[in-house]
């Protein structure tokens, strides 16, 4: 990245391959990289998952603690999502409070989970108006090779699906599984020149002009979307993204079971 000429050559190479429908890592335009995951790896968390999509490596941990509900939703638990692009994950990431990229990432993941009503917050009330369960999802990137959105979404969703409400720890009854209703899956496409590809890696993200993340629920309905990047997408490209989000969402659901 630091050598502009090299990156220029790399860019041309990627573009030339794409003109033939090929990608630098051998994938077809709508192929995902291999997805692996491990859940329950952090015992101090109430739910945790580490997800690798290709070389991109993300962890999500869930902590569930008693707290005060918001005044306008006195009977509902509270959901909060944070993400940190720590400097461990890439030479370009800097220490410090989350920047706009980390904030957007957290908010898009949060939106998919919140809008799909994946977590049944109505069941997270202890005493109406006084005490509810607060569910904190914290996401850290360990290795960044593109497509943090889908990796972070998947890690958060898997952490939630395996999370336990720690009633015993706080003298609030038994430990019970976190009430979860569905599995929102995001699928991110990137546009390079006039080609759409799925699951972009780092090099592809660097030269892509637009990004579209689409989150579907178990029925294939849309729950969240986010267009990013300094370019545009046509209405036709949008339709393709929607088709692929439904199809690949189904594939990913099959992978995680």
């Amino acid at each position, binding site marked *: 990245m630091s050598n502009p000429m090299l990156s220029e050559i790399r860019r041309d190479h990627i573009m030339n391959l794409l003109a033939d429908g090929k990608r630098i890592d051998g994938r077809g335009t709508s192929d995902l990289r291999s997805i692996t995951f491990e859940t329950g790896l952090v015992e101090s968390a109430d739910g945790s998952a580490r997800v690798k999509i290709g070389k991109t490596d993300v962890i999500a941990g869930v902590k569930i603690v008693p707290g005060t509900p918001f005044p306008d939703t006195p009977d509902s638990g509270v959901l909060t999502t944070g993400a940190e692009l720590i400097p461990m994950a890439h030479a370009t990431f800097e220490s410090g409070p989350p920047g*706009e990229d980390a*904030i*957007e990432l*957290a*908010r898009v993941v949060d*939106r998919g989970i*919140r*809008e*799909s009503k994946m977590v049944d917050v109505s069941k997270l009330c202890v005493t109406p108006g006084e005490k509810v369960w607060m569910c904190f999802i914290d996401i850290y990137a360990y290795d960044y090779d593109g497509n943090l959105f889908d990796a972070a979404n998947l890690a958060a969703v898997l952490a939630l699906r395996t999370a336990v409400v720690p009633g015993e720890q706080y003298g609030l009854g038994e430990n019970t599984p976190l009430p979860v209703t569905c599995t929102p899956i995001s699928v991110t496409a990137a546009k390079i020149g006039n080609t759409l590809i799925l699951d972009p890696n780092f090099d592809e993200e660097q030269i892509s002009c637009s990004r*579209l993340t689409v989150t579907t*629920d178990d029925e*294939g*309905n*849309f*729950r*969240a*979307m*986010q*267009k*990013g*990047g*300094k*370019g*545009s*997408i*046509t*209405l036709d490209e*949008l339709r393709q993204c*929607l088709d692929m989000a*439904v199809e690949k969402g189904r594939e990913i659901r099959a992978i995680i079971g």
Partner: protein
Amino acid sequence: MSGQTDMVLVDDNGIRIDGRTADQHRPIKIEAGVLSNADGSAYVEIGKNKVLAAVYGPRECHPRHLQNPSKAIIQCKYNMEAFSVSDRKRPGPDRRSVEISKITAEALEKVVLTELYPRASIDVYIEIMQANAGTRCAGLTAASVALADAGIPMRDIIPAIAAGKADGHVLLDLNKEEDNYGEADVPMAIIPSTDEIVLLQMDGNMTREEFDRAVSMGVAACHEVYELQKDALKRRYTAKEKEDDSDE
């Protein structure tokens, strides 16, 4: 989107609580050139939203490490004023405003001829005086006009508006009640000459068919907003000419 309410948001005749039909936007008022110091500015009202946008630039880019040697960068600050919402908002940027600032700047990149101003910064400031669902679209609509008012070369002007869903109906330009108790919100912005999308978000619950309808409705309405943006700029130029004439 809570999607939970006993409130009737659309009646049996398809009429919404503020009297609109499904594909009508709220009253819109756009004025260009409303501030003195800024290089360009605009004021936008959409329903009860009241929004100011100002543009400074192209000017020297601070901090320096953000400079791009081949083009200008666009920096945007979207700010909700403390009294613009029902509960007082604590001053300073929160995560929501950081996200909106980012996607607003990105939406503008495609139409501004940034390549004409290497190393420069074009700074866009959006102030929300009063918020009532739809401020990000109102802000982007105002920012576009302010950029044009600043005389910054652009491929086109960007209009923005939201579509959404409430009470099971696909609706244009949700008002606050529809936003609070409805089922989905889809803010979007396009380049009118090509219908390319430069801003798109969605949250809630929509089938493919509903979403397609929302996008069609939004694109059509963007063209209406576009006409109002151009009108505002025309009025502004006319006024400027008069000023210039009277200066002679």
